[in-house]
């Protein structure tokens, strides 16, 4: 089991960190969050060409760099720290993993090099207006006519769904229910019959869309009806990546809040000298470090092929969600009145904490799933 980054991983983290601190200062975050697209194509191109980040987890034979989830988690942590506005989570964490998990060899050879180079941005559409993340809640139907499939229904909460060039859609075969009949499809972002609308979100740094499928022709990704395993796996991988993104954001808040407490004076002393503030910060740090351990552990387990990955994903997501939102609330509290203002940056991370708390399932959902999956040897 890996419990510490290697020398190379530390160096990689530094490179990513330097890039993101430069390209995603809060002035940029604030500019991009006001736009509909929610990202800067120039930065996306630099991130693809100079750092090759979209290729990170794509195996070399599909045009990628062939790194693992520990490296992906390092990237996620730094992106969470910088609150980068870019379609990385949607295209790499969600779509590329889904394609890797379910696609045929031919589809992988076709799609993955494009994602890896950053030349197309893809996403994954699972959840519908019920807001539930499990397979049984999928109602969007794939109707068949011979070899042709058409999709009928709607998807909601689709990350970057309004800007993605390719959309991986989870649907069910006609007449199926529960975990049966789960199928993956790919459709183009501009497919006829597809209506996309940007949702108004609490967290404007992560764009969500509603997609309506009105008899949209779709290509099956992998074998129709046999997608359940791949869906579970993809969502577990995504939960682990998101957990690492969350601890990065929480780390930013931790650091900036402690810094603030060292300069803000009240009653003739810096507020960081009051125990009420010190003890709150100590508790924040404990929450952060425990969540970090769970997130790191889960990422390492993915690379090691550990069979406990599903449980570890639930543990990491639950711990990171609870820690991030608590730390965000505490950060605002410690900033006092200024923390409640638009111009001070803390609320940007608070809102990402809130959106991440429920995205991919809230902590209670993950704890329940964890208990169902719990086994010996974790």
């Amino acid at each position, binding site marked *: 089991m890996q419990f510490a980054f290697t020398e190379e991983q530390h160096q990689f983290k530094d490179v990513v960190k330097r890039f993101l601190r430069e390209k995603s200062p809060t002035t940029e975050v604030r500019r991009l969050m006001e736009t509909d697209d929610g990202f800067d194509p120039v930065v996306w191109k630099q991130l693809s060409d100079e750092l090759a980040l979209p290729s990170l987890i794509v195996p070399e034979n599909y045009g990628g760099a062939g790194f693992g989830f520990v490296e992906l988690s390092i990237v996620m942590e730094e992106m969470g720290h910088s609150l980068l506005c870019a379609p990385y989570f949607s295209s790499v964490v969600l779509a590329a993993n889904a394609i890797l998990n379910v696609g045929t060899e031919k589809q992988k050879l076709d799609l993955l090099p494009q994602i890896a180079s950053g030349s197309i941005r893809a996403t994954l559409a699972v959840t519908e207006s019920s807001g539930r993340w499990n397979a049984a809640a999928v109602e969007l139907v794939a109707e068949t006519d011979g070899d042709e499939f058409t999709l009928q229904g709607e998807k909601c909460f689709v990350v970057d769904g309004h800007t993605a060039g390719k959309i991986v859609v989870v649907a069910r075969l006609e007449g199926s229910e529960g975990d049966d009949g789960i199928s993956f499809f790919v459709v183009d972002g501009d497919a006829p019959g597809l209506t996309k609308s940007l949702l108004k979100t609490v967290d404007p740094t992560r764009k969500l869309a509603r997609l309506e499928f009105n008899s949209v022709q779709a290509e099956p990704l992998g074998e129709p009806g046999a997608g359940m395993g791949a869906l579970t796996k993809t969502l577990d991988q995504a939960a682990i990546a998101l957990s690492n993104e969350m601890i990065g954001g929480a780390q930013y808040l931790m650091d900036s809040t402690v810094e603030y407490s060292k300069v803000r004076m009240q009653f003739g002393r810096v507020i960081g000298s009051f125990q009420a503030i010190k003890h709150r910060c100590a508790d924040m740090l*404990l929450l952060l470090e425990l969540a970090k*351990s769970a997130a790191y552990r889960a990422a390492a387990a993915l690379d090691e092929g550990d069979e406990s990955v599903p449980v570890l994903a639930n543990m990491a997501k639950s711990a990171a969600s609870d820690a991030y939102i608590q730390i965000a609330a505490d950060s605002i509290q410690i900033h006092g009145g200024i923390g409640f203002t638009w111009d001070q940056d803390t609320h940007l991370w608070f809102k990402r904490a809130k959106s991440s708390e429920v995205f991919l399932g809230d902590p209670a959902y993950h704890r329940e799933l964890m208990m169902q999956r719990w086994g010996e040897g974790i």
Partner: protein
Amino acid sequence: MSNLTVNAVKEEVRAWLQENWDAGLSLVEWRNKLADSGWGVPDWPGQWYGRDLPVAMLPEIEEEFAEVNAVGVARSGIRMLAAATILEHGNDLHKKEFLRRILTGEDTWCQLFSEPGSGSDLAGATTRADFDGENWIVNGQKLWTTSAHHADYGLLLARTDWDVPKHQGLTYFILDMTQPGVDVHQVKQMNGHASFNQVFITDATVAPQYRVDEEGAGWRVAMTTLAHERRNADGMNRLNRDSGLPGAIYEEERKEVATVMEPYKWYPQRAGRVDLVMQRAKQTGRIENASVRQEIAKLLIMSKSAEWTARRARAAQELGMPQGPEGSLGKLAASNVAKQASGVHTLISGADALLTGSDGAMDGLIAEVLVSVPAVSIAGGTDEIQRNIIAERVLGMEKEPRFDSGPFKDVPRNVV
């Protein structure tokens, strides 16, 4: 630590055990063999009964011991804090005289730090040691001294200079507990056990060679003891199991558990007994309840994350990387885990949480968890003190204004 070295070490210890383990030996005979071979405390220096192996290797070696039911050295209680302190600050005389008998279990130790007037504020100790030209003469009172009633020696923190600021006037001694000037009275705890004591010290003597480190260096030495206490916050829970096996050496081991180890009998309970939670939830059927499942899940996440946090700290240390904040959080994490576990055991037990002793769940074991957990956030440095340390040392936040910085004799303190 590569797999290759792990396997080589495992093989070596296995061969050594095959050659040497003999349940017919007396406990002390066997433990002397362990001390001579270095297999009793393989993480200790080779020169002093160890083999210079990394701590991470210990579980692997313990596995080999368990395989053949071999008894280990005496590892529990304050003895290991004494050993760690002596290894770091003691001179060769101390090491020669005490380390072996610590390992064989022939000597038992206690920690004479807290006093009626100074607990969290350890540096405010008023027990005094005055040099009479020949010996140090000790007078004062210690409190909450675990296992003093069994102890042969005490790790004593006493004031030797009242005219300097409080941290500078302390000296660290090894006190012979069996002398007439040391009077020990057990104190009954809220959980019914009496593992800690009041210790009255009247004109007790310490010969000059039993001072540890320099005069006035007591605070620094005490920090070593405390660092080990906090690091091993859960090490205490790994009491020697009762093997239940027939044989003279196991008989002796059982006797040791029943006597000198008796004060620590409830320590696993004070840590919350997370290990019993799933089993209890299934037996009682409470696992079917969704809100109980939520609380169990929170507990398991917290306790596993705490374990992984300790592993991260150790892994970084082994790679020679600077220690991150993860190394300072163990004690506070353990305290949170224990509290959550106590809540979960209550939820699972329902009305049975009203009962204790033979009427209580698991013959009173669960009730013992519920009334023992409050000790965790006090003993070895309270949660508040841990938070102060984390805020000041790890996060670099400003210290509070102090009212105790002048010469100790002028500092306001408790009247006792």
